[in-house]
């Protein structure tokens, strides 16, 4: 017994109960602005001019969000510039999501009276779908149905010594209970990859970790720049981090100590449970949407913040359908942005708790929010536009 969640037809369990409208754009935005309990993804990445691999990534994000356990039902519309490509047709998106057993409705301006007609039909449908979804009740379930994703950001030295270790404890606990957890940011394991490779469940996984780092480091070197002109970012350096290796060695603490079961691409759903490394990019407005598309039903941002000043209001949720938690171990950050912070572990630095005690408190916070308590960012209507992690050239 653990959290209270929404049972889905495919056996997954949601921590939220949204109606999702995809793809991005005017129609989806109009419907979700009008109807309570709905979500859409706001992004400029619609596939036009993108390679087949990148279009497939976009499709994986859209269908992955549709299949996410936090989504009760989905409306797909046929007016995105990308729908002409085979990867992004309405039929493909709708069929793949419907295979999870969810209700999927399609609206098409060409058949439904133009854009105005499609918006009107979408609003009518969405209202009934939200009403229908609201009849579902939460039931008590197990930790194995949690699928977490984490990123650490605005990192400073509190991240490595207190913030990330608390998340690491949480990850170990969820993985031990049979759940799933994602960490990533390939640039930010450079310097720490040997330690991670040793934790790989198989030699293939170990090689995949080292290969991902070698590829990323070669790209970094090809710029002719010292990586420190890019990453660590200025706020990291202002917070006391002196090199990429130092940042990486602190960053991996958020992944706990469990064996690494695999290396996933952006928005790729794992085949099993356990801890996974995702070969992705650190961008806040990119990484969390990818985790949600891979099935995360709750995500965490472990914030350092030593280099931030005046940020009393932090960004709105960039995870589309997954509740998003702000965690910090920096007492100054906590004092500055207290009403944004879901969890504080500066207590470890202040000698009031050890990392395991802080981690246990974080676990309780996660269970509470998974069961329906809003995360601080969920009290905002504002959400961030999403920058999909697409790697290939545009034409």
């Amino acid at each position, binding site marked *: 017994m653990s959290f209270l969640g929404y049972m889905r037809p495919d056996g997954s369990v949601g921590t939220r109960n949204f109606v999702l409208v995809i793809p991005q754009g005017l129609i989806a935005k109009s419907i979700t602005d009008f109807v309570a309990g709905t979500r859409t993804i706001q992004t400029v990445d619609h596939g036009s001019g993108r390679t087949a691999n990148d279009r497939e990534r976009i499709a994986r994000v859209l269908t992955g969000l549709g299949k996410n356990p936090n989504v009760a039902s989905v409306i797909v519309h046929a007016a995105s510039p990308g729908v002409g490509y085979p990867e992004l047709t309405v039929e493909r998106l709708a069929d793949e999501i419907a295979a999870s057993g969810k209700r999927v409705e399609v609206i098409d301006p060409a058949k439904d009276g133009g854009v105005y007609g499609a918006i009107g039909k979408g609003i009518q449908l969405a209202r009934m779908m939200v009403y229908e979804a609201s009849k579902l009740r939460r039931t008590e379930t197990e930790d194995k149905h949690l699928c977490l994703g984490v990123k650490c950001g605005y990192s*400073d*030295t*509190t991240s*490595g*010594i207190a913030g990330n270790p608390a998340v690491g404890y949480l990850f170990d606990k969820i993985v031990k209970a049979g759940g799933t957890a994602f960490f990533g940011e390939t*640039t930010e394991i*450079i*310097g*720490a990859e040997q*330690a991670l490779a040793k934790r790989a469940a198989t030699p293939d996984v170990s090689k995949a970790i080292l290969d991902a780092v070698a590829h990323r*480091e070669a790209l*970094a*070197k*090809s*710029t*002719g*720049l*010292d*990586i*420190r002109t890019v990453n660590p970012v200025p706020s990291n*350096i202002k*917070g*006391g981090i*002196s*090199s*990429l*290796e*130092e940042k990486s*060695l*602190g960053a991996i603490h958020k992944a706990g100590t469990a064996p690494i079961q695999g290396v996933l691409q952006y928005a790729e759903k794992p085949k099993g449970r356990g801890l996974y490394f995702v070969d992705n990019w650190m961008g806040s407005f990119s990484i969390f949407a990818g985790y949600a598309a891979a099935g995360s039903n709750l995500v965490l941002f472990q914030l350092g913040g*030593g280099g931030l000043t005046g940020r009393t209001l932090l960004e709105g949720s960039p995870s589309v359908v997954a509740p998003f938690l702000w965690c910090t171990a*920096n007492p*100054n950050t906590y004092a500055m942005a207290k009403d944004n912070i879901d969890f504080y572990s500066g207590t470890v*630095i202040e000698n009031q708790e050890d990392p395991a005690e802080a981690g246990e408190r974080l676990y309780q916070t996660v269970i509470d929010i998974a069961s329906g308590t809003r995360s601080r960012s969920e009290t905002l209507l504002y959400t961030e536009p999403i920058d999909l992690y697409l790697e290939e050239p545009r034409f």
Partner: protein
Amino acid sequence: MPAKRALIMHPKDNVATSIEEIQPGDQVQISRGGVVRNLTAIEAIPFGFKIALEEIPQGAIILKYGETIGKAGRSIARGALVHVHNLGGTRARGDLEGRENR
């Protein structure tokens, strides 16, 4: 005046992380696993920044978490601030490609 506190992450480390604002001349207490070490800060060490636990010659490896976080770009005195001015990263250095590794 009570000693200021800094954390050492691994017994092999030659730097510690301050968890208080440290002023030049402050006594700094570094404890790990019941072993307590003391040193005098010779520079200001802001919260979250690193202090050298010993003299670190130019080119020597700087260790935190028991792992390499960079090399000393110049000789660093015991009790000095260790940061981007005297610590060089060793990874993803496109600027050093094709040259001798410094």
